[in-house]
C-alpha cells in the first residue's frame, strides 16, 4: 500500500539526498536486520505454498517444537495474505459503494448480511472450489483458508471505509475541487487519509478476530477429504488427536509470541504513524508511541532506500486519472433518474428471486420441512446460549471494567492485556476445557457453552475500560461532591457513561460467539467426542460429513438468527446510546 511511503518520506527524500553523509547509523543496522528477516521469511513461506498437495500427506504435521516456528510463520503469512486481500476489497468495493448510488443500493445491504454469515460454514464450499482451481497444489487449500480469514475480516473494514468516504468534511472537499484535483488525486490526498483512522481500528479488530479463524481453518475435513495445512491450527488438531498435552502448551506459547510480535512490529507502528490522520483540530495530549516507528524514523539508510518509492509515489499522485474534478456541480435540481432507478431495482429483485428459487430447489431435493424445523430448533438453542453468555459476561466484566477504567494506572496495564486476550484464538484453549469436561463427566450441553464466549468476552472488557476512562472528570467530581455512591452512582454516572462503549463491545462479542459456536459446540480430545445440541454443532457435523445441503441450511438459518438478533436488539440499543448517552 503506497500510503505507507507517503508522508513520512516526503521531506526526507530531498533532505536526505542533499546530505553528503550516507554512512549508516546504529538504528540502520537494527532496522536492516529486521527488514531482511521479514523478507527472507516471506519468500520462504511463499515458496512453500506452491508445493504439491501430496507433500502434505508425505510430510504430515510433526509435533516437534523445532518445527513450530515454521508453522507459526505459515499461519502468520496466511493471516497477512487475507488482510491484504481484505484491504484491496475494501478500497475497491467500499469506494464503489460511496461513489455510485446504484452500486450502493446493492453493496451496503449485502455487506450487512455478509457480516452476519458464519464464516466457518463457508469452508465446505471454498475448499471444494479452490482445490478444483489449483488441482494437486497446496495453493488451493491455502486459498480456501485465506478466503475463510478474508470473510471474517473484510466486511467491517469495508463498512468503516464507506462510512468515512460518505462523511468527508465539506470544506476539505471544496478545497480539493477548487484546486481541480482529479478523482485519483482526491482519493489519495483527501478521502483515503480521512478514512485511515477508522480503517486501521477496524483492521485491528479484524486481525484480532482473524487469529481464531486461521486456527480453525487450517485443519479441514470435508467429507472424506482431510487437509492439514502446515500451521499452528493443524499442529493443534494433530495434538488433540494424539492427546499430546505438552504440544498444546507449545501451541499456546507460539500463538502468544506471534500475536505479541505482530502487535509490536506491525500494528503499533501503523497506529503511531496514522495518528496524524485523525481529523481533529486540537492537539491530543497522548500520542500513540511505537519503538519500531521511532526506529524507522531515525534510520538514515532506510530513508535512502525508501526515497525512490517516495519519489515514485509522488509522481503517481501527479497522475490525473478519472478526469478532473473541475466541473461545477448543479445543486438543488431534482434528478430525473427515477425511472432508471426503478429499472435497476427491478433487475436486482429479479436476480435475487432467481437465486432464492435456485437455493430452495437445491435444498428441496434432499431436505424436507422437518429439517428446517430441526435447524430452527437448534438455532434457538444456540440463541439461548449466546444470550445467557453475553448477559453473564456483561455482569462480570462491566463492573470490573469500570473499576479498572477509573484507575488510569491499572487501566494502562490491563488494557493491552485485554486486547491481547481478544486477539488470542480461544480455540487453542478448547482442549483444556474438553479434558476437564471428560474428566468430571458433566453435561456437555451446558459446559461446552462457555467456550463460545471464551475469546469474545474481552471485547466487552476493553470497551468498558475505554468507556470508563473517558468519563469526564467534572462528572466524577459532581458525583463525589453530592456524595452519590453505590447503586445511584452506577445508575446515574457509571452505567450511562459506559453504555455506548459497552454496546460496541457487546455487538462484537455476540457476533463472534455465533461464529465460535461452530467450533465450540463440537469438541474432541483424542477419541473422546463432546457435542452440544445447537446450530453450531449442526453445521460442524454437516461439514465433516460433506453434507452440502445441510451446511447451506445451517448457514442460512444462522444468518437469519444473527441478522434478526442485530436488528431487534443491538441496533436499537446502539441508536439509543448514540442519541442519548454520548458524552461528546
Amino acid at each position, binding site marked *: 500500500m503506497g500510503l505507507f511511503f507517503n508522508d513520512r518520506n516526503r521531506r526526507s527524500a*530531498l533532505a536526505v539526498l542533499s546530505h553528503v553523509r550516507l554512512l549508516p547509523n546504529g538504528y540502520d543496522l537494527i532496522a536492516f536486520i529486521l527488514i531482511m528477516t521479514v523478507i527472507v521469511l516471506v519468500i520462504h513461506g511463499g515458496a512453500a505454498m506452491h508445493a504439491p498437495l501430496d507433500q502434505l500427506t508425505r510430510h504430515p504435521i510433526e509435533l516437534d517444537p523445532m518445527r513450530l516456528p515454521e508453522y507459526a510463520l505459515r499461519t502468520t503469512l496466511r493471516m497477512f495474505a487475507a488482510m491484504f486481500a481484505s484491504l484491496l476489497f475494501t478500497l475497491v468495493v467500499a469506494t464503489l459503494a460511496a461513489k455510485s448510488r446504484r452500486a450502493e443500493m446493492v453493496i451496503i445491504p449485502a455487506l450487512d448480511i455478509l457480516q452476519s454469515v458464519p464464516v466457518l460454514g463457508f469452508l465446505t464450499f471454498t475448499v471444494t472450489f479452490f482445490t478444483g482451481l489449483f488441482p494437486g497444489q497446496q495453493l488451493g487449500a491455502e486459498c480456501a483458508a485465506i478466503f475463510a480469514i478474508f470473510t471474517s475480516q473484510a466486511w467491517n473494514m469495508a463498512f468503516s471505509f464507506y462510512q468515512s468516504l460518505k462523511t468527508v468534511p465539506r470544506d476539505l472537499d471544496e478545497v480539493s475541487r477548487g484546486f481541480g484535483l482529479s478523482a485519483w488525486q482526491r482519493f489519495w490526498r483527501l478521502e483515503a*487519509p480521512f478514512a485511515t483512522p477508522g480503517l486501521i481500528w477496524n483492521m485491528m479488530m479484524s486481525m484480532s478476530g482473524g487469529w481464531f479463524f486461521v486456527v480453525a481453518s487450517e485443519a479441514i475435513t470435508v467429507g472424506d477429504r482431510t487437509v492439514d495445512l502446515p500451521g499452528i491450527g493443524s499442529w493443534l488438531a494433530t495434538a488433540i488427536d494424539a492427546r499430546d498435552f505438552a504440544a498444546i502448551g507449545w501451541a499456546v506459547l507460539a500463538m502468544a509470541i506471534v500475536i505479541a510480535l505482530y502487535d509490536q512490529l506491525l500494528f503499533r507502528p501503523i497506529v503511531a504513524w496514522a495518528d496524524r490522520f485523525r481529523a481533529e483540530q486540537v492537539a491530543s495530549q497522548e500520542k500513540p508511541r511505537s519503538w519500531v516507528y521511532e526506529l524507522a524514523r531515525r534510520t538514515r539508510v532506510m530513508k535512502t532506500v525508501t526515497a525512490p518509492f517516495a519519489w515514485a509515489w509522488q509522481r503517481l499522485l501527479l497522475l490525473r486519472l478519472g478526469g478532473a474534478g473541475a466541473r*461545477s456541480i448543479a445543486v438543488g435540481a431534482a434528478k430525473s433518474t427515477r425511472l432508471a432507478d426503478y429499472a435497476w431495482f427491478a433487475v436486482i429483485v429479479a436476480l435475487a428471486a432467481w437465486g432464492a428459487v435456485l437455493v430452495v430447489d437445491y435444498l428441496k431435493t434432499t431436505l424436507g420441512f422437518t429439517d428446517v424445523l430441526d435447524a430452527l430448533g437448534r438455532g434457538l438453542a444456540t440463541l439461548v446460549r449466546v444470550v445467557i453468555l453475553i448477559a453473564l459476561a456483561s455482569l462480570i466484566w462491566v463492573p470490573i471494567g469500570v473499576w479498572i477504567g477509573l484507575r488510569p494506572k491499572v487501566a494502562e496495564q490491563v488494557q493491552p492485556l485485554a486486547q491481547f486476550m481478544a486477539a488470542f484464538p480461544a480455540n487453542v484453549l478448547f482442549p483444556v476445557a474438553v479434558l476437564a469436561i471428560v474428566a468430571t463427566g458433566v453435561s456437555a450441553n451446558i459446559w461446552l457453552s462457555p467456550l463460545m464466549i471464551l475469546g469474545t468476552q474481552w471485547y466487552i472488557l476493553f470497551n468498558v475500560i475505554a468507556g470508563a476512562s473517558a468519563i469526564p472528570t467534572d462528572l466524577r467530581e459532581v458525583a463525589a461532591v453530592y456524595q452519590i455512591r453505590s447503586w445511584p452512582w452506577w445508575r446515574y454516572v457509571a452505567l450511562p457513561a459506559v453504555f455506548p462503549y459497552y454496546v460496541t463491545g457487546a455487538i462484537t462479542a455476540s457476533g463472534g460467539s455465533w461464529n465460535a459456536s461452530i467450533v465450540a459446540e463440537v469438541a474432541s480430545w483424542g477419541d473422546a467426542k463432546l457435542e452440544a445440541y445447537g446450530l453450531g454443532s449442526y453445521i460442524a457435523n454437516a461439514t465433516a460429513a460433506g453434507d452440502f445441503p445441510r451446511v447451506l441450511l445451517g448457514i442460512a438459518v444462522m444468518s437469519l438468527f444473527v441478522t434478526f438478533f442485530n436488528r431487534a436488539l443491538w441496533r436499537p440499543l446502539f441508536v439509543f446510546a448514540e442519541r442519548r448517552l454520548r458524552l461528546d
Partner: protein
Amino acid sequence: MNDAIANKALIIARDVCQSYARPSSRTLVVLDNVDVTLARNEIVGLLGRSGSGKSTLLRAMTGLIKPSSGTITCEGRALTGPSPAIAVVFQSFALFPWLTVLQNVEFGLEAQGVAPAERRKRALDAIDLIGLDGFESAYPKELSGGMRQRVGLARALVVRPKVLLMDEPFSALDVLTAETLRTDLLDLWCEGRMPIEAILMVTHNIEEAVLMCDRILMFGSNPGRVIAEIRVDLPQPRNRLDPAFRDLVEKIYVKMTMRDQAPGQSGLFRGTGIALTLRRISTNLLSGLIEAVAAPPYNGRADLPPLAAGLQHEIDDLFPVAETLQLLRFAELAGGDIQLTQTGKHFAESGVDDRKRIFAQQLQAYVPLAAHIRRILGERPTHMAPARRFRDELEDHMSERDAGETVQTVTNWARYAEYFAYDEQTDMFSLENPA
C-alpha cells in the same frame, strides 16, 4: 455596461439565480437575479446576514456550484468549473489535518502537476510572504486560529490566482487576531506584493467591510439579492475612529434596519403565517437584550453600533436577536436604532412569572405557528400531537433544515412561556405541564 468596465472586469456574474426544487411544492429561491462585477484592482465586499445566500453566490463564482440560471464569466470566458485563476479562502480554514503547513501550501500546486522541487520553492516563498516562517513542519492542530488562516491564505496565493475569493475569512477568529490578519492582508495588497488582481470577500461584519473594501454590495435576504452598492472612497490605511468612517458605518446600519417593502415580511424572517421561518434564538438572549436596552444609558432606545460594541457582540449576532424582538413586538427597529415597545418595557420590569405570561401572550398573537400548535393541542381530546406532523406541514413551505429549526425554536419559546410542553423521547407536543 460599457466596454471600459467590461475590459477591467475579471469576474462578471449576470442574472444569477439559485433555487432548490422541492418535491411537494414551490421551489425555494436562494439567489434572485444577482448581478456582480469584480474589476481589477479592487476589493469588493458582499455584506449581509447569515442565510442571505452570499456564500452560495461566492461558491457559484468559484465554479464550485453551477447556479440554476444566469451566467458567470471569468476574464470573458464562461466559468464551467473551478479555475486556476480563482483561489478561495474558507471561514473554517479547511486545512488538511494530516498535512504539515508546507504540504498544505503545496497542495494546490500538486493538483496542477507542478514538479516537487518547483513546488517546494514556490511554497516556501508564499510561506515567507504570509509570515509563516518557522512553522513549515507544524501540523494544523498545533497552530492557533490566526496561524491556520495564514496557511489558508498562503495556500490560496501560491497557485498565483488572479482573484482571491474569501468566505468570511476572519469570522472564526478572535477580535485581536482578526484585526492583525486584516491589516497584514491590506498591507500586502496595498504594497502590491501579492500576485492577485482583485479580492471578493463575503462578510457579515460591517466595520470589516468598511475597513477593507473599495465597494460594498449589501445583500438582502429572502431571496438573496443585492439591495445597495456603497463606494468606500476613504484612503488606506483607514482609521476606525475617523468621523467619515463612523458616518459610513452608521449609514450602513440605517440601510440594514430599513423595513422591507414587501408586506408581512421582516428582513430576517422568510415566509408568512405558520410558514414563517424562525431562527434559533434563545429566550435568555431575548430577555438579555430587552434588559440591556431598557437599562441606562439607553433607557429604552439604543443606537445599534454602540450597543453591539458595548455588549461585545458582533453585529451579526445582534441583528437576529433584535429582529426577533421586533417580530414579537417587544421592540421596533428603525434608522439604525432599536426602541422598546410598551410590552418590551413592561417585560423588562416584570418578575419571572409575569415575563412568562407576557411572552405567552406575544407568542399567541405574533407567532402563528405557536398559536397553531396550541390550537390543535386544545382541539384534540388527548391534548397531544406529534411534532413530526408540524415539521411535515412546514416542509411544504421551507427546507427540511429550516422546518426543523423553526419547530425547535417554537418549542423552546413555548417551553419558556409554559405555552405548551414537548417530550423529546416521544417527539410529542402536549398541553400537560410537567409541574
